[in-house]
């Protein structure tokens, strides 16, 4: 499965579940923007490694909305502690998708440690995440998207030929925050 195909499946699932979708910096955000732009997409432009953390804060603040995070192997390796935090604090409405292409795809495809065998699904489970799913084909992956916890999908290295995101940071966040109404009073 190409990464952009996985992203298209995740975007379709997010739309179907009326979910908020937080996307990792670099080509993954560009590919998401190209295949399925929605106001409910938050595109990261910096702070590599923090997609899973941003999504966690959002999911805790908005238990009434499903929050899906699209992350990569390099970014998760940069913030491995997030797996332990997610294990103990992530609510039911949180799903972290790790698209593992074994390389830093946005910087010239230098290999990450998952290329040498580091298993992020096993790390998530060892951190205490109870719902961990390793998806091996597109059907398997699509099924896992309705769940919670962590989903790992191996994808091919390489980036799609997609343009940069022509939205300013202000436009991304204002549009995103306007796309979901305030939480109902608890």
């Amino acid at each position, binding site marked *: 499965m190409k990464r952009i195909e996985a992203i298209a499946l995740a975007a379709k699932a997010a739309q179907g579940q009326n979910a908020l979708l937080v996307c990792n910096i670099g080509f993954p955000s560009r590919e998401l923007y190209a295949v399925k732009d929605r106001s409910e997409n938050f595109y990261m432009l910096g*702070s590599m490694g923090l997609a899973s*953390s941003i999504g966690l*804060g*959002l999911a805790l603040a908005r238990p009434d909305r499903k929050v899906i995070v699209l992350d990569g192997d390099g970014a998760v390796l940069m913030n491995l502690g997030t797996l332990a*935090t997610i294990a103990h604090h992530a609510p039911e409405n949180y799903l972290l998708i790790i698209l593992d292409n074994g390389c830093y795809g946005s910087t010239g495809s230098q290999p990450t440690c998952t290329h040498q065998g580091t298993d992020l699904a096993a790390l998530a489970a060892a951190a205490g995440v109870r719902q961990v799913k390793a998806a091996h084909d597109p059907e398997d992956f699509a099924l896992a998207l309705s769940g919670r916890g962590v989903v790992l999908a191996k994808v091919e290295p390489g980036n799609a030929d997609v343009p940069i995101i022509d939205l300013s940071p*202000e436009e991304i966040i204002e549009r995103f925050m306007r796309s979901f109404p305030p939480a109902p009073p608890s």
Partner: protein
Amino acid sequence: MKHYQSKMNPSLAVFRGLKHAGIDFAASVPCVNLQQLLTTVGEDPGIIHVPVTREEEGVGVCAGAWMGGKKPALLMQNSGLGNSINALASLDLLYEIPLLMIISHRGCEGEPIVGQVPMGRLTPGLLDAMQIPRFSPAPVQAEETVAKAWSLAAAERKPVAVLLDLQFWRDA
């Protein structure tokens, strides 16, 4: 025996400031000086408390919480400011996301641990270089200052720091 009852408990003063500001979400990495505050925050049913593994992670969690409608604070030691610089710049400053940072400022006057000194000296300058406003109240002003620091963060949509040094925590 000296009578301290007329003095403000510094942890309680900070906590009252958080409540006064309406802070309802906190991420934290411990410091010995924050232990009472962390316990109090953790026990407050009106604050979602997420102990994180690294301060940078806390910047991300708080940013998401703010987008979700919460008023977030990050409770940490100043060593954690060093772990957070890129996130504060390329997440909070870039997208104009407010954050209240309650920082135990180690490595200043009276610090017994030599390893705290370099970051202790650099901390005010790092905040100034990032144009992040900083306040260092005495315990008697802490409630008001903490509340005002959040108001400023929310109004200017940027991180604001409250730096609390060794003397602050000693004034119990």
